[in-house]
C-alpha cells in the first residue's frame, strides 16, 4: 500500500489519480441523485433548503475540481508516456505531490460537512459577495476555498510534469507530428491548464483574504464583476480541459475500431490548437446578463468555436466512412460521446448568442446544455477510455455484455434526464432552486428527469459490478486485444515498470498500424507473443445486440 501511494511510476500515479477521481465521481453522483429525488415534485420533500444548497455546491465542485479535471490528467499520466514510448515521467515527484494535494483537497472539501455550519453553499462558482464572510460564514466555506486551491494546484503540478514528459522524453523518431491524437489532445489540454489554473488559485487566495477581512473584492463596487472575470478566465478553459483529452481518446477508438488511421489527422491537430487558443478568449459569455462585458466580442469568439469543433466531428465521421467497423463496447461509448456531446455543442452555440442567453442563462436550459458536454462528453469519453484501456491496465477484458448494458442504461439515462431540462429551462425554471411553484406545471418533466437520473445510477452500478467481476474473472488477454495503432499496445498488459522491452520503428502517429499495413506483426517486431488475435465468438454475438441498440 505504501509502495502504491509513494511510487514514482507514472502508471501508478496515473491509476491512483484516476481511481481517486472516479470515487469522487461516485460521491458527486450520489449528491445529484439526492437532489433529483428532492426535485421530483414541488414542495420540500426530505431536504432543507440549506442542505439542498450544500448539495448542489458540492456536486458541482466535486465534478469539476475533484473528478473531471484530475481524471483527464490521471488518464494522461498513465497513457501519454506509453504512447510516446517513454520509460518514465519527467519530474514524477511533482506529479505525485500533485496527486497528494488533489486527494487531500478533496478530503478537506468534504470535511466541511462535519462543521457546524456545514459545507460550502454558494455554488461551485462562489460568486462574490455571496461567498464573503458575511453572506456565507463558517469554517466549511473556508475549507472549500482552501480545498479548491489544493486540488487545482495538484492538477497544475501534474500538468507541468506531463508537459515536461511530452517535450523531453519522446522516443527516437517520435516527432511532434508523430504523436498520437490522444497525446496531442493532452498536450493542448496541459497548455490550457497552465494558462488558466494559476488564475483560479490566485483568485481563491484573494477570496480567502477577503473572507478574513482584507478588502480585496469588497474594496470597490466593481469587485463582484472583477471576481467573475477572474473566475471565468479559469472557468471557461476548464470546461475544455475536461473534454479535450476525451476527444483524443474517442478519435483513436473510432480509428482503431474502424481499422483505419484517423481521417485528417493534421487538420484535427490544428483545430485542437485553434480551439484551445480561442478558448482563452470566450470567458465573458458567462457574463452576458451582467451587461458589463463586451457582449458582441464574446458572442463572436464563442460562436467561432463551431469551426474547429465541426472539423473534429468531420474527422470522426470520415474515419468511419470506408472503414471495417467493429461495435465492441469502447466503440459504442465513443459513438455515444459523438452524439451526446453534439447536443451540448449545438446548444452551446445557442447560449453564445446574447439575445438567447438573456433568457436561458441561469435556467435549466443551461444545466441541460453543460450536462451534455460534461456527462455526454467527459463521462462518456471516460467510459470509452476505461473500456478501451482496461485490458492494457489489468491484462483482462471487461465483460462485454455487462459493458453493453452499461452503455444502454447510460445512453438512455442521459437522454431521459437532460432533455426535459431543456424544456423546463425554456419555460423559465431557474437553476440552483431547491423548490418550484406547483402552478408552473413542471412536475411531470421533473419526474421524468428524476427517473432518468436513477437510470444513469443503475448504469453506473452495472459498470461497478463489471469492474469488480472482471478484475478477478475477466478473460485474460495479451498485449494488443483490439489491434491498436499506437505504442501502448506494443508492450505487455500491464506494462512492466519501465514500459517497453523494445520499440517498433516510429514513422507516423500510428506506428503499429503501419507495420500491420505492411503485412507484419507489430508484436513480433517487439518480441512479444500474441495471446489473442481474433475476437471470440461470444463477443461476436453480443456485437449484434449492440448494433440494434445503436440503430434502434
Amino acid at each position: 500500500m505504501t509502495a502504491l501511494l509513494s511510487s514514482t511510476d507514472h502508471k501508478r500515479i496515473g491509476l491512483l489519480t484516476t481511481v481517486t477521481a472516479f470515487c469522487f465521481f461516485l460521491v458527486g453522483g450520489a449528491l445529484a441523485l439526492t437532489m433529483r429525488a428532492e426535485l421530483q415534485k414541488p414542495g420540500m420533500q426530505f431536504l432543507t433548503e440549506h442542505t439542498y444548497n450544500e448539495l448542489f455546491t458540492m456536486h458541482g465542485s466535486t465534478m469539476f475540481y475533484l473528478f473531471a479535471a484530475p481524471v483527464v490528467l490521471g488518464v494522461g499520466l498513465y497513457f501519454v508516456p506509453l504512447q510516446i514510448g517513454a520509460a518514465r515521467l519527467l519530474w514524477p515527484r511533482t506529479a505525485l505531490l500533485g496527486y497528494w494535494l488533489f486527494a487531500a483537497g478533496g478530503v478537506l472539501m468534504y470535511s466541511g460537512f462535519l462543521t457546524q455550519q456545514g459545507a460550502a453553499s454558494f455554488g461551485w462558482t462562489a460568486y462574490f459577495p455571496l461567498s464573503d464572510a458575511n453572506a456565507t460564514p463558517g469554517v466549511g466555506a473556508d475549507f472549500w476555498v482552501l480545498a479548491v486551491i489544493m486540488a487545482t494546484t495538484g492538477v497544475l503540478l501534474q500538468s507541468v510534469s506531463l508537459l515536461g514528459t511530452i517535450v523531453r522524453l519522446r522516443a527516437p523518431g517520435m516527432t511532434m507530428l508523430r504523436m498520437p491524437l490522444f497525446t496531442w489532445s493532452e498536450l493542448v489540454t496541459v497548455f490550457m491548464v497552465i494558462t488558466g489554473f494559476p488564475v483560479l488559485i490566485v483568485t481563491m487566495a484573494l477570496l480567502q483574504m477577503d473572507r478574513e477581512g482584507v478588502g480585496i473584492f469588497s474594496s470597490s463596487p466593481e469587485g463582484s464583476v472583477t471576481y467573475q472575470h477572474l473566475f471565468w478566465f479559469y472557468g471557461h478553459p476548464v470546461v475544455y480541459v475536461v473534454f479535450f483529452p476525451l476527444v483524443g481518446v474517442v478519435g483513436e477508438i473510432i480509428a482503431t475500431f474502424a481499422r483505419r488511421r484517423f481521417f485528417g489527422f493534421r487538420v484535427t491537430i490544428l483545430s485542437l490548437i485553434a480551439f484551445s487558443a480561442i478558448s482563452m478568449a470566450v470567458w465573458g459569455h458567462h457574463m452576458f446578463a451582467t451587461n458589463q462585458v463586451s457582449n458582441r466580442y464574446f458572442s463572436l469568439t464563442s460562436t467561432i468555436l463551431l469551426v474547429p469543433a465541426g472539423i473534429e466531428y468531420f474527422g470522426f465521421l470520415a474515419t468511419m466512412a470506408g472503414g471495417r467497423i467493429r461495435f465492441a463496447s469502447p466503440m459504442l461509448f465513443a459513438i455515444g460521446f459523438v452524439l451526446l456531446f453534439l447536443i451540448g455543442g449545438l446548444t452551446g452555440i445557442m447560449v453564445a448568442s446574447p439575445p438567447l442567453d438573456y433568457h436561458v442563462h441561469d435556467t435549466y436550459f443551461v444545466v441541460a446544455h453543460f450536462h451534455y458536454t460534461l456527462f455526454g462528453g467527459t463521462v462518456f469519453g471516460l467510459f470509452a477510455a476505461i473500456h478501451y484501456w482496461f485490458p492494457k491496465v489489468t491484462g483482462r477484458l471487461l465483460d462485454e455484455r455487462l459493458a453493453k448494458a452499461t452503455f444502454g442504461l447510460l445512453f438512455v439515462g442521459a437522454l431521459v434526464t437532460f432533455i426535459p431540462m431543456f424544456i423546463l429551462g425554456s419555460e423559465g425554471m431557474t437553476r440552483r432552486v431547491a423548490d418550484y411553484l406547483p402552478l408552473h406545471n413542471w412536475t411531470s418533466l421533473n419526474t421524468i428527469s428524476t427517473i432518468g437520473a436513477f437510470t444513469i445510477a443503475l448504469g453506473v452500478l452495472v459498470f461497478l459490478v463489471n469492474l469488480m467481476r472482471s478484475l478477478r474473472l475477466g478473460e485474460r488477454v495479451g498485449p494488443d486485444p483490439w489491434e491498436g495503432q499506437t505504442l501502448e499496445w506494443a508492450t505487455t498488459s500491464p506494462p512492466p515498470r519501465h514500459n517497453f522491452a523494445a520499440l517498433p520503428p516510429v514513422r507516423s502517429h500510428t506506428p503499429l498500424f503501419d507495420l500491420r499495413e505492411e503485412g507484419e506483426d507489430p508484436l513480433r517486431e517487439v518480441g512479444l507473443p500474441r495471446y489473442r488475435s481474433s475476437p471470440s465468438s461470444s463477443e461476436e454475438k453480443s456485437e449484434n445486440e449492440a448494433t440494434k441498440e445503436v440503430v434502434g
Partner: protein
Amino acid sequence: MKPIDTRNQFFDVWNVYWPIALAVFLVVLGAVVFLGLRYRSRSREIPRGKDESTPVEIGYALVLACIAAFLVFLTFSRMPGSEDANATGKPVDIRVTAARWNWRFEYPGLGFVEQGTRQHIPVLRVPVDTEIEFTGSSLDVIHSFFVPEERFKRDVFPSQHTRWEMVFDAPGNHVGGGECAEFCGLEHSNMNFDVLAMPRPEFARWARGAR
C-alpha cells in the same frame, strides 16, 4: 430611438437557431447510423482509402466559417441598436431593489412603492406597449431580475445601478412570472414576484389610485 422588444428579439434568433441545430443533429445522427450499418464488417483486412484530403477539409472549414458568420450576423442584428418595439407614449420609470430574499418596485413618477414581504409576494405592474426604464440595484449580494414571459433577465449588483429597458407587448397576469435567476443563498428559490401587464388605460386608472 425606439426601445427593444426582448421577446421579439429572442424569437427572431431562436426561430433560426433551433431548426439549424436540429438539422445538424439529425444529419450527424443519420451519418453515424448509415456509416455504422454500411461499414460494419468482421473482416480483418485493412481497408484502402485516403487518410486526409486537404481540399475537402479546406472546403468544409469554409462552409463552417460561413455558418458561423451567418449566425453571428443574425445575433448582432438583433442586439441593442436594432430596436423594433411598438411603444408609444411617455416611458415609465421603475426602480428595482433586490435584497435577500425579496423585491421592491418603486415608481418615482407615481410616488408608489410595492414592497414584497414574507406575507406578500410583490407585484410588478406595467402598462403594455410602453417603454419601461428600469434601474436596478441590490442591497446585499448579486441577484438577477428575470421575467421568462419577456425572455429577458438582467443582473443587479450591490453598490451599482444597472439600467435596462423593456416593453411588454401583451396584457396578462403572470403569477410567479418573475424570478431571481442568480443564486443568492438560503431562500433563493422563493424569491419570486408576480407580473401584471395591463392595458394602458387600466394602468392609468391604477396609477391615479396609487398616487
